[in-house]
């Protein structure tokens, strides 16, 4: 494929508030995402969710996003108008959130919410009919049996796993090229987690999508994703291919890896991470 | 940094900032001080507080603020517009309105203080007992509260005030009877949620009796939200009291009461509007003050109320 990356970020900064009292969240990071599965991993407060939402410009108005470059394909995300962003969201970029209990509107049936996603980008009477058909089709694609019945249910009437599938369906129906998944499996039971991940994998592969997988679970992403970006305190400390994780060089990454319990490599005591303030002053390492 | 807190050698400012505090009272004093500081950051709240202090001052210093007697009639000077002699003009009996407003502040304050003293402890106690003890105590107390809540505030107060007869004490009782149910409801809700708390379970396991738990643990935790609610209720109490005065119940003539002043001034309103304007603005100002202070208190005391 000769096309460029889907997302390009150079020196992305996000801060809350302005001027002297501004609280920086993301301290100038740079990365690209192509048609691959990229994970952004870090602990709570590292700024990973903020990065995901910054790409879609869905941060609250108090947040100020600046960058040397922040592009989705050829479009400058920082200069784009709200109209352009509305066009991008859903149609070219999708966001999958953590807990379907909260991320779906509780008083609207799920089928209607999925259909709405289509109708936001396709207008006209024909589109209404088409939305209905496409909703059923996408529900089948996410492996929900009896889509006609499920479409009429309310979010509190379906299980967590089904809810997450509905969320995926809702974001995929308009055919985006990029998916940003913000901790999509953290609220699910372990068994359901694997199913949903498998589903995501299949859909991404079959449609050739790019994925930004935000998570705190290093073990999860090393198997699932192609590349891993490690964030700490608003900075990127290391970027590497998933298969090379064991050869990570940065002490933070190494500390993360060694604090994971392993059934094969049993230790009498899990090491406690010692945070080095020096990590805060290093600039992000780009690939 | 740990400073050695020996009482004799610290100035007040240092004592308030000392870390760690030396004992429970020291800690409570420090918390109160920090609360005051937080409160002072609210400009509107400070405005409300200023108004209330002004009213208290007017009530206390009434004899010195005006030379006119609020009760003596002087028919030669009736319905005079505001002037240098009569700042707010005179009413239909020639009484100086400014004097009546200032002395009326005493009536208002009297009502507020008494209603608070009656309503706050009773509502708090009933609510906490209902919430914590549960069972039939809860049922009975809540049924009683429901009955009082089945009528809107003014109507209930009207009914009681009429039944008890005119007069300011009866009006106070009537208003108090309408003001306690919301406090009780709030206290009950707080007590219910606190009941589940682990620290209550811990104290119970230590062998504390029910009453000790209620008084020493639950009631203090309910205090902040109850204080906020009581303050906000005061705004309504003032309006209810003025309403009762307007309808002829409550303080009886010739005692100056702002609501009654509006009512008697009604006849002369078209040609002498000042008779009605001054008392109305006073009522609104005091009610507004309590609303502002209550809002600011809510921001200061209640950490959960995110605005």
């Amino acid at each position: 494929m000769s096309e460029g990356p889907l997302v390009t970020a150079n020196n992305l900064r996000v801060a809350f508030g302005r001027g002297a009292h501004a609280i920086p969240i993301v301290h100038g990071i740079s990365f690209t995402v192509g048609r691959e599965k990229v994970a952004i991993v870090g602990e709570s407060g590292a700024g990973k969710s903020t990065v995901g939402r910054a790409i879609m410009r869905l941060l609250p108005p108090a947040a100020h996003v600046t960058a040397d470059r922040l592009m989705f394909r050829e479009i400058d995300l920082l200069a784009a108008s709200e109209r352009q962003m509305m066009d991008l969201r859903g149609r070219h970029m999708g966001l999958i959130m953590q807990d379907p209990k909260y991320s779906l509107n509780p008083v609207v049936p799920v089928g209607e919410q999925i259909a709405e996603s289509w109708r936001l980008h396709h207008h006209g009477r024909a589109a209404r009919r088409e939305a209905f058909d496409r909703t059923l089709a996408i529900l089948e694609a996410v492996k929900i049996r009896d889509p006609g019945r499920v479409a009429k249910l309310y979010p509190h009437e379906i299980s967590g796993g089904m809810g997450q599938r509905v969320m995926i369906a809702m974001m995929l129906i308009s055919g985006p090229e990029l998916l940003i998944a913000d901790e999509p499996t953290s609220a699910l039971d372990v068994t359901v987690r694997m199913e949903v991940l498998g589903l995501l994998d299949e859909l991404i592969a079959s449609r050739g999508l790019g994925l930004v997988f935000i998570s705190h679970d290093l073990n999860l992403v090393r198997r699932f994703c192609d590349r891993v970006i490690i964030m700490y305190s608003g900075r990127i400390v290391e970027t590497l291919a998933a298969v090379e994780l064991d050869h990570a060089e940065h002490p933070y990454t190494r500390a993360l890896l060694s604090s994971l319990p392993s059934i094969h490599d049993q230790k009498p005591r899990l090491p406690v991470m010692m945070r080095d303030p020096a990590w805060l002053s290093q600039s992000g390492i780009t690939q | 940094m740990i400073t050695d807190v020996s009482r004799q050698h610290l100035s007040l400012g240092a004592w308030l900032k000392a870390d760690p505090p030396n004992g429970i009272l020291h800690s409570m004093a420090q918390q109160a001080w920090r609360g005051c500081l937080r409160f002072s950051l609210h400009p509107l709240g400070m405005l409300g507080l200023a108004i209330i202090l002004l009213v208290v001052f007017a009530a206390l210093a009434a004899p010195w603020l005006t030379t006119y007697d609020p009760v003596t009639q002087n028919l030669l000077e009736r319905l005079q517009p505001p002037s240098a002699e009569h700042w707010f003009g005179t009413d239909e009996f020639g009484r100086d309105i400014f004097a009546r407003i200032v002395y009326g502040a005493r009536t208002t304050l009297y009502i507020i203080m008494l209603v608070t003293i009656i309503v706050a402890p009773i509502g708090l106690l009933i609510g906490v007992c209902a919430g914590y003890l549960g069972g039939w105590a809860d049922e009975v107390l809540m049924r009683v509260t429901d009955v009082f809540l089945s009528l809107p505030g003014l109507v209930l107060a009207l009914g009681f005030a009429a039944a008890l007869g005119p007069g300011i004490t009866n009006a106070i009782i009537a208003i108090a009877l309408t003001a306690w149910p919301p406090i009780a409801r709030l206290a009950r809700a707080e007590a219910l949620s606190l009941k589940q708390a682990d620290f209550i379970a811990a104290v119970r396991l230590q062998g504390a009796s029910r009453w000790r738990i209620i008084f020493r643990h639950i009631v203090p935790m309910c205090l902040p939200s109850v204080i906020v609610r009581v303050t906000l209720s005061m705004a309504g109490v003032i309006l209810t009291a003025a309403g009762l005065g307007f309808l002829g119940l409550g303080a009886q003539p010739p005692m100056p009461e702002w609501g009654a002043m509006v009512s008697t001034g009604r006849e002369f309103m078209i040609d002498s509007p000042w008779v009605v304007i001054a008392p109305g603005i006073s009522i609104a100002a005091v009610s507004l003050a309590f609303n502002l202070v209550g809002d600011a208190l809510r921001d200061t005391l209640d950490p959960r109320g995110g605005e």
Partner: protein
Amino acid sequence: MATVTMVGGSARLAGARRLSGKLLSVAITLAGLLLLTFLMGRLLPADPVLAVTGSEVDKATYDRVYQQLGLDLPIWQQFLSYVKNVLTGNLGSSLTTGRPVVDDLLTVFPATLELAIVAILVGTFVGVPLGVVAAANRGGLMDHVARIIGLAGHSIPIFWLGLIALLVFYSKLQWVAASGRIDILNEGLVTPITGLMLVDTLLQGEWDIFRDALSHIILPGALLGYYSVAYISRMTRSFMLEQLSQEYIIAARAKGMSRRQMIWNHAFKNIRVQLLTVLALTFGGLIDGAVLIETVFGWPGLGQYLTRGLTMNDMNVVMGSVMLTGIVFLIVNIVSDRLYRILDPRTR
């Protein structure tokens, strides 16, 4: 299949139990209300015998009427006979009008109802959008405007504002009419069908009288409505703020929705049911305000009836009016509670 019907059956049983529990609490509240009104009536500083006979009466007649009224019976028996009377629709007669209280109430209540309806309409159509806009522009100009309106509504005494409004709009500007529901000249020309003047005049095609009635109701109705605007807009704002911080709002925007669509099609939908409860509670406050407004505007409704009864120490009037108020309030609360259950999909 058998399992399904069993589950359905037990669910129905639980629902029936809930309903009977609710009915029981309503009955208890009603009983308490009756007790309250009974006590109020008995405590009134008026002699009920003199109310019937007049003040000039000899001892024999006095004793006879005393017995007739059952005042020699123990208090609890008096209460029981009072309850029995109420349940059979006998609320006694009024001292001042001489008519049965029930008849009086049927005449005055629609007047207050009309006022309350106008007020709620004003309150809703002004208050709800105000609250939504305030929440959507949190900290902005509209938010501050809404806050000021709210504070004013909670601080300014309604009877005083009514007087000032009369002064301005009637005396000085002559825009609206003064007291009463319609001009004296027009009284008796409209047959009361619903008791609501605006509706009746429209139904009978009396346009002039309709305009007259409108000019009479607009000021008290708008003022009463203004008071509910304060409460309604504050609650709406608070509910909306709660919704706007939810996750599904971000998900909706991520689909490509505009902010306005998100606010009205999604966030607002979630608060509609809560607003219903707010409207029910507003109603109670409206009755309070109506008592004062009716006195200021000479509006011949329940509020004025009650206050006249108070000043005249008319026991039956006071008891009847207070009880009617309580019953109406109770019904409004029950209806809103039921509606809440029906409308919110989560409670089904």
